[in-house]
């Protein structure tokens, strides 16, 4: 065994104990019934109307959240980069510019200093029928906001929690673009819109794809956000699986549905791998 392999030993033991073996157990439960005989029923259970509906809602809400994240993150990442680009043009940008940029980064990083659960609970308090926002609206004699326990609240929670995971890879791919490449395109006659569609966007595609993966997967599998902001009325596939384990104690069904969810995740990762052949979107 060479040195490099030796250094990998702790992680190898870790991943065997806590990733590979649990994964094996999930597959065992998912593909057997109570008597221990092989069956596909747990996996096929996804096609039952209730489960299928949860899966579709999950896919739909995750997709919408991912797109909202993308549309919020891309301009933000561009602003963050524009400060840096003037640094590369040969003359140091003003200090105020750097400070300006730091404030944006701070605003964007700040929520991440709070616990995920806490953040989501805070939104629950804010959005409640008699919550902070509605109290203010009532005070201003404006109609109350009724989005708690609706899909909108879940989307809000997803976007709020996962937005940073979109900003980071997009920012990383933007910052790698040599400002002279942009100048070259301008020089060759492209207007700002053409520069964006023909140069910036294609060069940041790996970052976008990896951002989509990083937001879509946690959004697809979440059960906490839907539990807290959906009020138990909207069951995402994550909630269904959680209930099978914690309430129904049907580990077989829970594992079977997990396998289905895993297929979607693997599909997403394969798609992103195809788009990002050079590993340029590598983010974290």
């Amino acid at each position, binding site marked *: 065994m060479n040195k490099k392999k030796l250094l990998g030993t702790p992680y190898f033991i870790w991943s065997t104990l806590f990733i590979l073996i649990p994964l094996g157990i999930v597959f065992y439960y998912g593909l057997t019934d109570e008597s221990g005989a092989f069956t596909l029923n747990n996996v096929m259970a996804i096609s039952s109307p209730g489960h299928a509906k949860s899966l579709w809602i999950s896919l739909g809400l995750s997709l919408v959240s991912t797109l909202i994240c993308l549309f919020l993150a891309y301009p933000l990442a561009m602003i963050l980069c524009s400060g840096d680009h003037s640094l590369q043009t040969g003359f140091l940008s003003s200090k105020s510019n750097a400070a300006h940029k730091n404030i944006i980064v701070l605003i964007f990083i700040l929520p991440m200093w709070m616990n995920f659960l806490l953040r989501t609970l805070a939104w629950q308090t804010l959005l409640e029928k008699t919550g902070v926002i509605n109290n203010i609206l009532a005070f201003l004699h404006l109609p109350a906001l009724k989005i708690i326990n609706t899909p909108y609240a879940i989307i809000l929670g997803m976007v709020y929690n996962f937005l940073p995971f979109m900003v980071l890879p997009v920012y990383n791919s933007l910052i790698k673009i040599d400002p*002279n*490449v942009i100048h*070259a395109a*301008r*020089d060759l006659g492209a207007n700002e819109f053409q520069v964006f569609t023909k140069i910036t966007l294609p060069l940041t595609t790996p970052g976008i794809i990896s951002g989509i993966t990083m937001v879509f997967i946690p959004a697809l599998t979440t059960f906490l956000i839907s539990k807290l902001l959906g009020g138990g009325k909207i069951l995402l596939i994550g909630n269904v699986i959680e209930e099978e384990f914690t309430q129904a104690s049907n580990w077989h069904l829970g594992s079977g549905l997990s396998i289905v969810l895993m297929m979607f995740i693997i599909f997403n990762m394969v798609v992103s791998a195809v788009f990002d052949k050079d590993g340029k979107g590598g983010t974290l």
Partner: protein
Amino acid sequence: MNKILIDLKNINKSFDGQMVLDDLNLYIRENEFLTLLGPSGCGKTTTLRILGGFEMPDTGKVIFDGADITKLPPNKRQLNTVFQKYALFTHMTIAENIAFGLRIKNKSKSYIDDKIKYALKLVNLEGYEKRMPDSLSGGQQQRIAIARAIVNEPKVLLLDEPLGALDLKLRQDMQYELIRLKNELGITFIYVTHDQEEALTMSDTIVVMNQGYIQQIGTPEKIYNEPENAFIADFIGDSNIISSTMIEDKLVDILGTRFPCVDTGFGCNKPVDVVIRPEDVILSDPDRGRINGVVTHLIFKGVHYEMEVMAAGYEWLVHSTSMFPVGTKVGINVDPFNIQIMNKPASEDEEAVGINE
């Protein structure tokens, strides 16, 4: 003389209160190979970026072919730029890179295909259409960058230290290549570099810049042989710059010894700087020159020997094809027309940048 194509008038530019260009005036003729030469931070790149439209001057005008283009964005200008480190579009093939400008202008496919073929032939990279930029060497990428610019038939090609990232041999080859290209295309080249050898080799006109000021404009011969001040003399090639006194017309006192020279009009007993190129210092047997000295260093440089000679309290740099070993007593002589007299720097600004570059 060709007509004036570009006229920069009273250009001022500062970044964060720091003056980069101070009342710059410069005109460029049609079909000229003009080089902006100077140390980093002298304002040469900023001048080029103002020409390209990537920077706006604080005050002053850019006149192009009679029209004021000061506020015109880069995509509306009839000039193209070859950038430092190539700046190729890495997500496109070579053909797509070259076609970029033409596609923006909605040229026909057959026109574009012809142009790609023509441009690749011009830069000696035929058959590279389908390759990706990353698979090319630095020199090849630079040629593609040039091809990408010239297919648009610009009136002026701006080149921003295009050879800076290449190794010495390739740089020399590319210098000849650029001269050939310029002659074949018959357009104006404006070239930015800090490499004096590059500037001397390729240019019709050299503009020496320092600290936002133009120090001298002239042909390579003129700049090399008749530098106007110590900064230029020092920046362009090696030289002996000696503080001296002009006794009268055609007679200068260098380190206590009188040398005949050819310059006039400096006045009597006036302090001046004298520039003597190392290859113009003639070594002879002791007492047969004007000053006696001792060889202190000797290096073989291939084409010539480089020696340092201590004489009259000054370390003379000498290039000669004959060799004098360290310790040899020698006489020093300089032909009158090889003594270049310059005024002492007038302002402290000029003084400050003087000879430490």
